[in-house]
């Protein structure tokens, strides 16, 4: 395991970054356009996002590569740019970090389902192997899979990511079922914790999904189900559409106050997903500092 990651594990809790996609939308990303393509066309806009997070107190930032796997890029006609998109994604975050934050290479679901046979485990592993190898070669400190819905796909991604030799963070998104405590494919936190730990993930987590209130309970359940460190990045609530634009209702102060509940529930890494901004991270970082000052450690 690399020293950067060891330091993060030894000195918790750790403040991660907030959302990227919803920030890009505010900066003019259009419907149908993928944010990852901005690594090529608007690198300065991309860099402004993690830079703002580092200034707000993020100790870990991700890369703008969530969609840059071969399957998703092919759907957008960008598969020829796969290597560049991932390499430049790491370079942008590295510049923004300026030595003050670790850079975790982000990967996401392909949108193809194992259960229907439209893709096989071997194909998924190859797709993730290709992407994570580039992220690792470009200098990412760890690999993080986010917003996973299907456990089979997440396990393939963990396996492939581990081949890079980097630490692996594995997160799923919980927003389905009556209690909104399952993934789209019906996976519970307990099932995820068991299978992802078994597959060799170094950190288990939850991101996106239903909002921070429900994620406190999900964090507790993950804590009870695995001894791995936990990573929790909830949305700023579920979006409402107001005059054609998504609006997230949770305020930064409210979000940060509840982050303390996540720490109490056993989270080691905390931050935000869709709808969160540098303002949220500034508030979260302040709460984490206060929490540590009270004698708590991750």
């Amino acid at each position, binding site marked *: 395991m690399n020293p950067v990651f060891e330091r993060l594990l030894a000195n918790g809790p750790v403040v991660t970054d907030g959302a990227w996609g919803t920030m890009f*939308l505010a900066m003019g990303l259009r419907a*149908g356009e993928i944010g990852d393509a901005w690594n090529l066309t608007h690198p300065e806009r991309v860099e402004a996002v993690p830079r703002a997070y580092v200034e707000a107190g993020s100790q870990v930032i991700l890369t703008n590569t969530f969609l840059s796997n071969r399957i998703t890029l092919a759907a957008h006609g960008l598969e020829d740019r796969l290597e560049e998109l991932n390499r430049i994604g790491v370079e942008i975050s590295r510049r923004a970090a300026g030595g003050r934050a670790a850079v975790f290479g982000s990967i996401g679901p392909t*949108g193809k389902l194992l*259960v*229907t046979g439209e893709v096989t485990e071997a194909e998924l592993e190859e797709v993730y192997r290709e992407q994570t190898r580039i992220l690792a070669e470009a200098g990412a400190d760890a690999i993080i899979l986010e917003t996973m819905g299907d456990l089979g796909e997440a396990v393939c991604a963990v396996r492939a990511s581990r081949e890079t030799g980097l630490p692996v963070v594995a997160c799923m998104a919980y927003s*389905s079922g009556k209690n909104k405590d*399952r993934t789209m494919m*019906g996976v519970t936190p307990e099932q995820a914790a068991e299978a992802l730990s078994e597959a060799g993930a170094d950190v288990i987590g939850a991101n996106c999904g239903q909002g921070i209130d429900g994620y406190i309970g999900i964090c507790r359940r993950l804590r009870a189900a695995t001894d791995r460190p936990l990573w929790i990045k909830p949305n700023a609530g579920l979006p409402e*559409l107001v005059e054609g634009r998504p609006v997230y209702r949770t305020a930064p102060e409210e979000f940060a106050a509840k982050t303390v509940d996540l720490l109490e529930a056993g989270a080691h890494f905390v931050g935000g997903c869709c709808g969160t901004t540098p303002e949220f991270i500034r508030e979260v970082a302040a709460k984490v500092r206060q929490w540590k000052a009270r004698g708590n450690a991750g």
Partner: protein
Amino acid sequence: MAELSKLYDAVLNGDAKTAAAVTKEALEGGVNPIDLVNQYMVPAMDEVGRRYECEEYFVPELLLAARAMKASMDLIRPLLASSGAQPAGRVVIGTVKGDLHDIGKNLVAALLEGGGFEVIDLGTDVPPEKFVRAVQEKQANIVALSALLTVTMPAMRTTIETLKEAGVRDRVKVLVGGAPVTQKYAEEIGADGYGENASEAVTLARRLVAQ
């Protein structure tokens, strides 16, 4: 003679191979294809929907049941057509312009087909004009719109407006669905119905065509 209850079980358990085998045997044995649909497959899909509603089933089980249903329907459909039997309704379905997500849309399409509807799937990133053309050419009576992204939801409104401008809005019922879509939004943009999940979409489609 095949044991027909096996067809019900095969659909319920998502066993496409058995569903097709039992169907084939039954049809060769002279069983009326409409009876196969109405007495075994539709009840099986209703049970699948019930299990989904009470969280015994999740998306994977729904997908597998829909596939089993489809395996059987592929054998039955040609016979239904030649017997002059009418589908429950004709649905044009697609993910709206700017949105490439298709898991939810495919699931709704499969369940509608399982529910006895004829489904014309336009795919993803479908421009409003393409919906209009399909409604005109296929004589559809339902248009089903899907979106996963909050930023592509406005394309649902545009699509409905384009249907109006083309003078075909009154001919069809418009259903909308997808993770960020709500009942309130459906009403705001003048859709006829909103389904919170795929199995609700089928119930809704049946209710709307019965009106």
